[in-house]
């Protein structure tokens, strides 16, 4: 019975070999499959957020009139026509979708610039912030998790577990304020906001160091929650793996404890943490909205708050779409990394 199954598989395999036009490289077919699932999701996000934002009372023209102060009814009607706001929602969605297909996200009424250029200008700052925060949370969190999980029930395990639970309850924006009070107001070690010193004229390494100094506090306040989360996850997973029979086999073979902890238990326990990295991408992007507001960082997250405060619907729609695409790409990268770490999961099979 088993043999016949194998033969079927073999035949299937040979058929694929004999028809080279159907065998794409595994990476390409992986990307194609992911694209096929990502596109419907993006379409739902697009239609959903368009409909919801459509329901808002007051449009961009109202906001513009409120800001400029003096406009008569004729000018207002003309502006509505110019921005396409006099048409019905179905017509406007069609216009938006066809513009989107050309990579045009519309016109930001708050910034008086195309939405796409505003977003592309802001996104790198937030990606830098999130990237550094993720790296810090992952490396420190899983290292501390290994330290806690190496000797379960020890003092350092209980200390790290309890403090991670407390840290996990701290809201990032409040932590940011506390860090500002300590390190910027009292100690004056670090700048309290912004992404770099204004008009400092710094270039090259000096500028990089300047940006780095500005990033320390925001990164810390964004990363702490995730550090606590990864610590806990690593430690709990390790406590499960210690009960696995293969650990006893390793002990019986006389491997040193250090080697068992790092090469076997920790290596297996890190996989769910890597999965969590992707799952937390959306949450971290949401957290950056508040953290960037606390530290006055002109990033993508703060753009969301600005779009809402200034009633800039096209910009808010662009931010929502942009964050959905960011989250999808981050998850794609995490899955690729997962395949590298775990030989049982290979991309494209």
């Amino acid at each position, binding site marked *: 019975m088993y043999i016949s199954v194998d033969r079927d598989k073999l035949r299937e395999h040979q058929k694929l070999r004999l028809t080279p036009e159907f065998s794409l490289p595994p990476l390409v077919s992986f990307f194609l499959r992911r694209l096929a*699932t990502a596109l*419907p*999701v*993006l379409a*739902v*996000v697009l239609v*959903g*957020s368009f409909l*919801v*934002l459509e*329901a*808002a*009372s007051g449009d961009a023209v109202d906001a513009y009139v409120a800001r400029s102060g003096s406009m008569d009814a004729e000018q207002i009607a003309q502006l509505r026509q110019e921005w396409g706001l006099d048409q019905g929602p179905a017509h406007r969605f069609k216009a938006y979708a066809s513009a989107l297909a050309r990579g045009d996200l519309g016109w930001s009424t708050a910034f008086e610039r195309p939405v796409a250029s505003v977003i592309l200008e802001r996104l790198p700052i937030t990606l830098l912030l999130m990237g550094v925060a993720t790296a810090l949370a992952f490396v420190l969190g899983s290292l501390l998790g290994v330290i806690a999980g190496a000797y379960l029930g020890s003092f350092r395990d209980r200390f790290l577990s309890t403090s991670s*639970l*407390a840290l*996990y*309850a*701290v*809201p990032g*924006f*409040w932590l940011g*304020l*506390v860090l*500002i*009070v300590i390190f910027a*107001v009292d100690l004056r070690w670090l700048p309290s906001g912004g992404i770099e010193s204004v008009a400092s004229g710094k270039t090259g390494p000096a500028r990089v160091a300047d940006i780095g100094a500005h990033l320390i506090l925001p990164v810390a306040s964004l990363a702490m929650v995730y550090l606590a989360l990864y610590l806990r996850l690593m430690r709990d997973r390790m406590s499960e793996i210690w009960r696995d029979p293969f650990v006893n086999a390793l002990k019986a073979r006389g491997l040193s404890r250090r080697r068992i902890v790092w090469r076997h238990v920790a290596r297996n326990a890190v996989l769910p943490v890597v999965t969590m990295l992707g799952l937390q991408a*959306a*949450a971290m*992007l*949401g*957290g950056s*909205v*508040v953290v960037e*507001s*606390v530290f006055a960082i002109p990033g993508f997250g703060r753009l*969301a*708050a600005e779009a*809402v*405060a200034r*009633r800039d619907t096209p910009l*808010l729609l662009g*931010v*929502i779409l942009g*964050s*959905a695409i960011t*989250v*999808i790409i981050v998850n794609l990268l995490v899955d690729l990394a997962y395949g590298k770490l775990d030989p049982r999961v290979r991309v494209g099979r």
Partner: protein
Amino acid sequence: MTFWRMLNLEGRAGAIMLAALVAMALLTPWIAPGDPLAITGEPMLRPFASSAHIFGTDRLGRDVLAGLLHGTRTTLLVACFSAAVALIVGSIIGTLAGYLGGLADTVLMRMTEAFQTVPSFLLALAAVSVTGPSVPTLIFAISLGTWTQAARVTRAEVLSLRERDFVAAARTLGMRPLEIAFREVLPNAFGPTASLAAISVAAAILIEAALSFLGFGDPNRVTWGSMIAEGRTVLRAAPYLSIVPGVALVVTVLGVHLLGRGLSRTERLQP
């Protein structure tokens, strides 16, 4: 008391913290009567400097303790209701997707995925910008981004339950599919979903605090987030105005996590 005995040390600590908070919220009309937004004393009194204002006053002279107490009410109200809405909506959608299968499953799960792709804080922000800030709209906005996890967990549970004998028995009795899904399958699948309650409440507290910190909360109510934002304008002169409500936030979220962990531990002990 059996409930108390079921809990471990962590769970008991959490239960005490939350009980204290609920007591504070219930006793607020007697401890701090009147409008917490009213000016009652000199501005910027330090904590413990005056017996009339134990936690001091903010930059307009409003009592910090009164704000904290009224903030407890807002926080608990919004958090509990939005977690409840998220769990109920999530389990209904999860049951429908898992039990009906096929096209309904595909459509509902794609929808869930779409909601998960957009940060829940961003969803809440966009929803509040559409509906305007008030307690019911905040509850709606927060649950908009947090129901997805409940839907996924319920669906997974329903998928394993729907092949069981009691479902076949219900079918033989002539029950209609939706009747089976909601009267037989959903109650049995709700256990794992209910264990998400602690996480949902904690997430709701943090989202509400962040929204009101950014100024998108209910303007007629005191919340801890708005107190932190208010204190931020005088952060250099009076950091305690931002720090005290933040400590209240941390204590609440920690209490919820501790109790949640304590409960899930005891659940695991029972077969």
